């Protein structure tokens, strides 16, 4: 449902690293050789670059799905495909190509990708313009790789969201907005390896550093000025680049550093961007479960302790994202499997009163004055989620928090994805906001290149911030509002919530707008 940034173990595959390093210096030598035709003067400077420090146009710190999506997007946009990009991530999956086999156990971490993201991946030009007002002329082409693996469109997809009090429910159908799908659930490892394949099959100049970022210098201090002329020149040359020091001893210089390193972003910390946010006193329990038959519907039930969601993953598998208070999450992790499945089924279906009924309040009639164009799903009745028969993966527990960087951009540095914003997983929007960031950034970098701007120029990067911040803040506010509305169990409020559900279920324009907003069209769910 959401993307959880697992703190990756720094696996230090020594042999691999050495091999990589050789490759890197070769690359740098090549770059140096090609780029200094007609400037013999800077020979010494180039020499010093070829040793252990390399120059790049863009350094993406964090090769997770959002960082890789940015790389893919840059690789496929005509204006940016000639950029020289470094990707810094200690995740061994980036260097070692392991195929994902169909019979492999499903990854408990999944992402719900919205139609906007799907068209970003497919490079569906027209749809993209409709969704983002964006102009990407070539596909990033990662979707074809995803389609080779397990994924599940919620095609006849219905999202059943209901209140535990049994007073209200709402059901969305893709056909309400004349679309085929409302989204697709993809395992994170599938998403990641698809983006990696996409990148590796392009002739993009990229270097992957299986390493971690130690420190970053944006403006080298003038106190370290050398006395001799060569070092002075070198200093002036490097002054307008950000310097990154990596844990494997490599030093990189880049015009633009992209922080795509997740919620605990090192780039954000090193740049000194402040964040605003709070911890929800909630943990999410994530696991994969198996049913007796295939499921095509996504379900979400709002329980007093937090929402529980069941997302179809294809092949009878579903993903569970269950939000609860920290003590209960510990119990859930420690209890045995049968017990857990039993508790899970109970949480999905029972307790807290009857199932909501479509006829309660005679609601269809009540809102009929709003127009005859009743949405298809308004007449569909409540469905009980399918029974879980067994657990298919380990149970993972993540604490939940909201965090938003006050700034996304400064000279040479920009934040994307979870590094800029972490949200509550309740509508699976986190990773989609991140993809939105990647798309916007690559477009703005292309715009900058078109008019010959330095891509580390702060005025250019602020344009990205101005575009993404309002969209992200809006989504965060909506999700946080949901979370807050459900953290109180009070009679009148429960009725209010139920009324809201009825509104969302039966008022056609409201419903369409909610679906559009959740699909990644950047509008408020209100007209």
């Amino acid at each position, binding site marked *: 449902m959401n993307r959880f940034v697992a703190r990756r173990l720094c696996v230090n595959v020594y042999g691999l690293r050495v091999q990589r390093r050789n490759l890197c210096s070769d690359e740098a030598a090549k770059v140096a050789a090609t780029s200094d035709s007609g400037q013999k003067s800077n020979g010494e400077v180039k020499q010093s670059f070829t040793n252990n420090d390399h120059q790049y146009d863009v350094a993406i710190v964090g090769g997770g799905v959002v960082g890789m999506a940015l790389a893919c997007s840059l690789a496929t946009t005509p*204006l940016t495909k000639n950029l020289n990009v470094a990707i810094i991530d200690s995740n061994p999956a980036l260097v070692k190509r392991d195929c994902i086999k169909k019979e492999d156990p499903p990854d408990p971490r999944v992402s719900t990708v919205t139609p906007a993201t799907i068209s970003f991946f497919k490079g569906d030009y027209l749809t993209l313009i409709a969704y983002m007002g964006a102009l990407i002329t070539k596909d990033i082409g990662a979707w074809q790789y995803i389609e080779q693996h397990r994924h599940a469109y919620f095609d006849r997809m219905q999202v059943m969201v209901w209140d535990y009090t049994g007073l209200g429910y709402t059901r969305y159908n893709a056909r309400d907005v004349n679309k085929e799908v409302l989204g697709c659930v993809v395992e994170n490892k599938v998403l990641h390896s698809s983006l990696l394949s996409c990148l590796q099959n392009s002739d993009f100049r990229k270097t992957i550093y299986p390493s971690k970022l130690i420190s970053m210098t944006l403006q080298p201090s003038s106190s370290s*000025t050398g006395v001799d*002329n060569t070092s002075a020149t070198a200093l*002036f040359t490097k002054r307008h680049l950000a310097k990154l020091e990596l844990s494997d001893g490599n030093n990189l210089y880049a015009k633009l550093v992209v922080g795509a390193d997740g919620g605990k972003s090192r780039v954000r910390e090193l740049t000194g961007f402040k964040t605003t946010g709070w911890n929800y006193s909630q943990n999410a329990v994530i696991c994969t479960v198996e049913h007796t038959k295939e499921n095509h519907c996504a379900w979400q039930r709002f329980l007093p302790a937090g929402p529980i969601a069941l997302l179809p993953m294809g092949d009878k598998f579903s993903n569970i994202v269950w939000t609860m208070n920290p003590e209960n999450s510990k119990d859930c992790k420690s209890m045995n499997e049968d017990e857990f499945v039993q508790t899970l089924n109970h949480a999905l279906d029972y307790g807290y009163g009857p199932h909501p009924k479509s006829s309660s309040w005679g609601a269809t009639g009540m809102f009929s004055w709003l127009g005859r164009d009743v949405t298809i799903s308004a007449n569909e009745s409540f469905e009980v989620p399918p029974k879980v028969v067994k657990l298919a993966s380990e149970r993972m527990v993540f604490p939940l928090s909201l965090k938003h960087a006050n700034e996304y951009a400064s000279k040479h540095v920009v934040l994307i994805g979870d590094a800029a914003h972490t949200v509550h997983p309740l509508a699976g929007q986190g990773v989609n906001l991140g993809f939105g960031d990647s798309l916007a950034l690559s477009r703005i970098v292309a715009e900058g290149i078109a*008019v010959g701007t*330095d891509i580390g120029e*702060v005025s250019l990067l602020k344009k990205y911030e101005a575009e993404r911040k309002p969209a992200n803040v809006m989504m965060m506010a909506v999700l946080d509002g949901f979370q807050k509305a459900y953290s109180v169990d009070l009679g009148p409020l429960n009725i209010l919530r139920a009324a809201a559900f009825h509104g969302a279920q039966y008022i056609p324009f409201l419903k369409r707008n909610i679906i559009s907003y959740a699909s990644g069209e950047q509008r408020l769910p209100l007209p």
Partner: protein
Amino acid sequence: MFPKLLMRQLRFLRNRPLLNLRFLSDTSTTPSQSCNSTITPNKLHNHSPSSSLNYLELAKFSAIADTWWDSQGPFKPLHAMNPTRLAFIRSTLCRHFRKDPYSARPFEGLSFVDVGCGGGILSELFLSSITISPMKPLARMGATVTGIDAVENNVKIARVHADLDPETSTIEYCCTTAEKLLEEQRKFDAVIALEVIEHVADPAEFCKSLASLTVPNGATVISTINRSIRAYAAAIVAAEYILHWLPKGTHQWSSFLTPEELVLILKRASINVKQMAGFEYNPLTGRWSLSDDISVNFIAFGTKIPR
């Protein structure tokens, strides 16, 4: 009521030191005239900056350059204008030279000259032409760029700054004038003179020099300010006296050219103006955009008629 307020405002501003004169005063040692007389095909480009400038000078110029080129610094609105002008230049020149607009370096193989303050511009006011000059962006777009300026310190500062980026270190800077360049029989595929013509003594002669520098069927791009009431209010009263984007006295309203006059003098210099656009500033977003309104700032693209 309003004029009185305005007067008070102006009186107040007059007492304040001009922010750019402060850091210019310690470098503006070379008067522009002396440089004109020395015939300097001063191709600093072939030397490393350290050989032509000593280290102290380098540091000093670099400090000035940093302030000028800081896009968030005192000249922010002027910097903001550059991408808009370049968008116009890029699209018209891509079409004219039949280059792929989706390429990152569409002007590869073309030679451009950016004519700085060619005529008798005040020596203190050299900052605007180099700071917001389109040379560096054009060099990033693949063009072989030559930048000329009559003020030697200008050229040095520009050199230091261009060397910071390997992509722009190929720019050739010359301390010379358009006329001098002409004597050297230099020709360029495109000649660009942005916000310069309003500072030259004889615009018609200047246009003739520009035309002679252009190869037949080459392109000429000129931007300037219209001689309109709105331009007086915007470019002189607002930009110089109220907002302090430019030092007072930068522009003389009487030396501005109307678009009709520009088209005419270019025609006489055998350049056909093919396209014209205006610039519009949005004070809320701080962004410039291209528009059809040419009543204040405007840019013209023309082609040289082959003889």
